């Protein structure tokens, strides 16, 4: 089955997503649903919508990190129990996935893909990756894998994400001190042939990611690649109209340049709309291709998705459509000073998105 492209990408937002779940997924012949037991209640939003539907096989990953706060652990346990209570035991299974190896290497994506590979079956008409509770290092490889396998089975492949404007707890994340290519998204980075390619770095800015930006910059620098330009993506429009400006100011050191420096070119993308992120990157890539084709030089754009979920979804779409590498820094643990929030029986979501990445809409 053909898939989305830069010219056509089917997406639903807000209540249209719920309609899609009710009208399409609930009536699909057989659905493979891959999700994560997460920290926020939105991580079980879609599972709650599909609970009771006969045709769905649920597979949940539980991300294992060494550094886990008690409150965070409890929330995970709570949502695990929530799922167990509401989903028929015969249809759902839970799987631990190690995120960071003992020596500090990031192994999340590889592990997740390896675990998930055994779940696929040509009987599935629809494959859904629920990224609501998933970290990028796991969600994106699973999505790519779903697309590759799903296409050979002629299945519909979907990614869904739900989030709330306000989190129930404030998390502080501790990042790894090395940068990694998201598994399956290394493209040709690291090959000798790319050594002299001009590199354009497109990092997505979000709150609290200054250290990661720094680590990524050093990684790119250590590769010896010529970093020709840095194009930070700032959230605009945003719930906070000043957010973009503040981020650019706060991160000018991590970006090695102040706005106004030649190398820095700001890209704007809607904070809550992954399609805008996707299209903004595509637009920029088209321009870049023209420019570099004229010079005859080889150039590559490296994308770095941030923790800002909706936006990073747009990035993975761009990475898949244009075969671009994704560089990131994995989180090795979460801590919080917030108290344990009250349990929620029926999760709600302020923001929802569904992207139909492969299948019937593209068959025309």
């Amino acid at each position: 089955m053909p898939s989305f492209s830069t010219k056509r990408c089917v997406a639903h937002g807000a209540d249209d997503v719920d309609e899609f779940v009710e009208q399409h997924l609930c009536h699909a012949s057989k659905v493979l649903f891959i999700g994560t037991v997460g920290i926020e209640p939105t991580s079980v939003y879609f599972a709650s919508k599909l609970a009771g539907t006969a045709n769905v096989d649920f597979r949940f990953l539980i991300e294992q990190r060494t550094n886990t706060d008690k409150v965070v652990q409890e929330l995970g346990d709570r949502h695990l129990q929530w799922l167990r209570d509401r989903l028929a035991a015969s249809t759902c299974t839970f799987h631990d996935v190690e995120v960071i190896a003992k020596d500090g290497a990031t192994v999340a994506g590889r592990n997740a893909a390896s675990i998930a590979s055994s779940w696929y079956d040509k009987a599935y008409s629809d494959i859904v990756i629920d990224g609501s509770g998933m970290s990028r290092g796991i969600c994106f490889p699973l999505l790519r894998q779903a697309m590759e396998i799903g296409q050979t089975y002629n299945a519909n492949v979907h990614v869904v994400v739900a989030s709330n404007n306000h989190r129930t707890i404030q998390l502080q994340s501790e990042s790894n001190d090395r940068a990694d290519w998201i598994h399956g998204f290394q493209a040709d980075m690291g090959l000798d042939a790319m050594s002299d390619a001009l590199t354009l770095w497109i990092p997505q800015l979000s709150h609290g990611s200054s250290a990661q930006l720094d680590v990524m910059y050093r990684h790119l620098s250590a590769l010896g690649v010529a970093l020709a330009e840095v194009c930070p993506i700032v959230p605009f429009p945003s719930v906070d109209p000043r957010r973009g400006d503040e981020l650019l100011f706060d991160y000018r050191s991590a970006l090695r340049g102040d706005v106004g420096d030649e190398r820095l070119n700001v890209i704007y993308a809607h904070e809550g709309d992954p399609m805008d992120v996707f299209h903004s990157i595509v637009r920029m890539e088209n321009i870049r291709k023209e420019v570099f084709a004229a010079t005859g030089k080889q150039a590559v754009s490296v994308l770095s998705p941030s923790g800002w979920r909706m936006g990073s979804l747009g990035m993975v779409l761009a990475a898949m459509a244009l075969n671009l590498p994704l560089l990131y820094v994995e989180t090795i643990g979460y801590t919080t000073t917030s108290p344990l929030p009250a349990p929620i029986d029926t999760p709600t979501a302020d923001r929802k998105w569904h992207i139909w990445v492969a299948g019937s809409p593209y068959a025309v």
Partner: protein
Amino acid sequence: MKAQLGKLLLAELMGWDDAEATKEFAWLKTVVEYKYDHYQGYNPGSRFFVNLLAWLAQFNPADRQTAYKLVRHRLIYISQREIHHLVGLTLPRLRRDNRRAVSNELRIPMCASWGHSTAERRAKEMDIRTVFIGLSDGARTDVLRRLNEGVISNEQIVAATEISIEKWNKLRDELGKRLRLEVFTDSPATFERVCLVDDFTASGSSLIRRDNDGTWKGKVPVFINQMIKAERFGTHVTTDCVIQIHHYIGTEHSRDIIEQRLKEYKLHLGGLGVSFTATYSMVLPKSIVINDSSDPALVELLKRYYGKTCEDEHTDEDIWFGYRRCGLPLVLDHNTPNNSVALLWASSLRPHEETGHIMKPLFPRKKRHVEHGQSI
């Protein structure tokens, strides 16, 4: 003025020590180069620093910190590139709404419309039969055109609401050609969707309002009246067309008001089959608004240094919180709306009667007047 000199004078004016100066200079370096110096209301040679110094100098030393904080922590400056990005969000929004309309028409869920040949054809037809009309210069129809080159025809985008009959006919003819090109042989060459585009609304009053005597005024009623008078409904535009009013920037306040008023206006129109919907590329949240419950020092500053001579026959009285008390700390690249707090844009014609104070603007306003006080 060179940035170096500007910073030097600023530090003196503000009484900063070295540590504070170092910190603030860093912020200013970023934001001035990035945004403030590009303000179109400035003359070359007198950009941000000059204006900031003059602005701060009008305050007593004890008040300067409060004034500076307004700029440092609350000011929202939307640059040209940012506005262009908002323009770019128009079509995706429209397309999404069109698809919903098509799905409703065919009584299928939206998710089933994708790849559904009838739905896809109908959506394409709807796209072709849409006309974009800019409600003011701020609509930037040239940018809208450029960003959507190859996707929206030039003959679908028009720059002003008072379009002549010749122009309407031309639009209709071109529409007919496009429909035939795409083999929509049965479709009438009339626009079924009119997208009225404008850049900014803070109070909704220039868009649509009801005067005390019950007459509906504002850009939308003016447009509708013109269309009725010229008998466009049924000839160039369908009688049950959807009128989508899209602003690039709105506020929560204006969004609520406009929604309410459009409902009332629709009732007022009675038999006319058109429907209205209002959409925005960006909505400024209530939290940015400055009003009586904001920081007392700031409120006091805004009032104490206010001079009535900045009012004119189009504005209300006592607009220290801006026109219609919108209380916005907002500056747009090409001009500062008068819905923003007066201290940012106002200049006094004469000294204040009692205090003798003369208001100096930080981002001076060009008065581009439309009507009823609201202008941008």
